[in-house]
């Protein structure tokens, strides 16, 4: 292939072309479809513009703080509590979403019943609804005088204006992630695999726990990671239902906003940087579990 990159005319693409001609790097040989250079160029520029520059700006500001200032700001008890609440509730919500998301996906994939299409469409609603609306609606329901609140209040359960409320809101916004990642994989599972397990004497429970669920693990983890990440960053729905008591139900994103409103940019930056670091570490961890489990059974048709 003398001319593997058919597109080289665009200015933004020149750098790539030059680098290739310098030929210290070997790009993967593209397929018969041209446009590898162009599309990679666009992708990288886009990522830099949208993701990398803002994030590096954050890191840059944070590093301007100086180490001791930074440590002092992060170890502030209010900050620590906010981070704990943010990550704790997001984790809990993602776990609950994983369990019920898998069940919901199962029902949608495996059974036929009237209204199935409607339910299927409803799963996406949390994507579309403004999160503030969701937050207000949930608060109204779970407030001590709300429909659900007045039922569970006598039982000693308080949801609105407590961390439990945060979890409820995060479950709402994170639900579609698990369902939508697990669903297509579930559709791929051959009925024969279940039948094979049955012929070998496995009970229904053994079939599910030993055959079906392990096969869904990579997809489930992806959904979990997405729901978790979304939960950590969620702001709109939470602030209405959380009550926002410092040390008790104040989430980190809200604390950042509070600090900004106090013109305390340093503290806001520090919290943001810590959140970024923790999120990155957790996503990296989840991704490596995924890569490990996926390597074991590449799907072969």
């Amino acid at each position, binding site marked *: 292939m003398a001319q593997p990159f058919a597109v080289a005319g665009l200015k933004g693409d020149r750098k790539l072309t030059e680098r290739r001609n310098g030929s210290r790097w070997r790009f993967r040989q593209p397929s018969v479809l041209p446009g590898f250079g162009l599309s990679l160029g666009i992708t990288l520029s886009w990522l830099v513009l949208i993701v990398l520059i803002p994030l590096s700006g954050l890191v840059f500001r944070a590093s301007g703080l100086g180490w001791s200032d930074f440590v002092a700001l992060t170890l502030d008890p209010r900050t620590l509590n906010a981070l704990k609440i943010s990550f704790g509730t997001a984790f809990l919500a993602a776990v609950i979403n994983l369990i019920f998301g898998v069940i919901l996906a199962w029902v949608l994939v495996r059974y036929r019943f009237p209204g199935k299409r409607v339910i299927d469409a409803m799963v996406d609603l949390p994507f579309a609804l403004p999160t503030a609306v969701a937050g207000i609606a949930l608060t109204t329901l779970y407030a001590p005088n709300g429909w659900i609140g007045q039922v569970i209040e006598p039982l000693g359960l308080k949801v609105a204006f407590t961390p439990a409320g945060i979890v409820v809101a995060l479950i709402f916004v994170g639900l579609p992630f698990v369902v939508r990642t697990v669903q297509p994989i579930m559709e791929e599972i*051959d009925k024969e695999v279940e039948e094979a397990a049955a012929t070998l004497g496995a009970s229904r429970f*053994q079939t599910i726990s030993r055959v079906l669920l392990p096969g869904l693990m990579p997809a489930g983890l992806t959904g979990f990671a997405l729901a978790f990440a979304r939960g950590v960053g969620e702001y709109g729905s939470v602030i209405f239902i959380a009550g926002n008591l410092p040390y008790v139900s104040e989430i980190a994103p809200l604390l950042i906003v509070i600090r900004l409103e106090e013109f305390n940019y340093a503290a806001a930056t520090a919290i943001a940087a810590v959140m970024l670091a923790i999120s990155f570490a957790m996503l990296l961890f989840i991704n490596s579990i995924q890569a490990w489990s996926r390597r074991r059974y590449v799907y072969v048709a």
Partner: protein
Amino acid sequence: MDVRVHNIRKEFGRFPALDDVSLDIRSGELIALLGPSGSGKTTLLRLVAGLESPTGGTIFFGDEDASQKTVQQRNIGFVFQHYALFRHMTVLDNVAFGLKVRPGHRRPPAAEIRKRALDLLELVQLSGLDKRYPAQLSGGQRQRVALARAMAVEPNVLLLDEPFGALDAQVRKELRKWLREIHDRTGHTTIFVTHDQEEALELADRVVVMSKGAIEQVGTPDEIYDHPVSPFVYGFIGQSNCLAVTLQNGEIWFEDRPIGLRAPAEPDGPANLHFRPHDIELIDGCGGCLAGLVTASRRVAGTRHLELDLGRTHPPVEIELPPERAAAGDHSRIAFRPTKWKLFRDGERQAVVAEAKSESSPIEMQEPTLVAQAS
């Protein structure tokens, strides 16, 4: 273990997939269910397995009524066409699965499970691949894992659904021979489904030919090929020709002349003459024969296939000849006479005539009936 299928019916919705099927399978037999798609062969296999439940009828394993048992209780081994291996488990774990899921009191100790799985992998010639995942195996290897997995539970009966359907021709041939060896060594009662007659005839002790949800014929490969009992079996197994003829005073007439074949005991009337392309003799000077113009000529391995046009609306007839005898080119006239043939009457039209030959249900003679044969 003996398997007896008793008057089994299966309907999907209102569509009957199996209609009153009975079949006796002796212990240790290797049985092929052969038929075109939609003939009900896979349904029958799945009914024996317990993956479907019959609309009516019973299935016995030995003397026990198995129809009321669940799949899990029947203790069968089932090999699926697309293997259905568990892809998150190693080959060894796949094979050991059936033993590992047994309830505590019936489960062998872990070390023994492992040993049995390894032994089975040796039997299917996959030693050394025990730590691989299914995705890392070829199609033929996966099929062998599937077989080892099915045999691990010491099944009452081994059921294989189109076991070689997804493999290429070369691997298929090898596995076929190999399956026969395994069967001879382990002696499991085995039923396999196939639409490939070559596979069925080569591999099985007995072949069950099925069509439209009913059994057409059960017999050894020789019986099935040499003595087909119905036009369907004649047409489905091997090559065959079918000509509309007339019977007159015990002689068979084609169009307006006798062809030199006799069926003395038969009453007059129309019938269908079946014969195989290689069961013919060429005749010089036609005084009672079939004759046609050669319209096509193909060399297939050791023989030459000629297609003859017998005129009018008759379908073309195919005959096979040694190449040196077929030297004559296109559009020459060839005269021949079948040496082995069978005469069937179209049951629906000729129910009354056929009645003379048939002892059962004279009025409702739906199936075409064999009326004469020669070999």
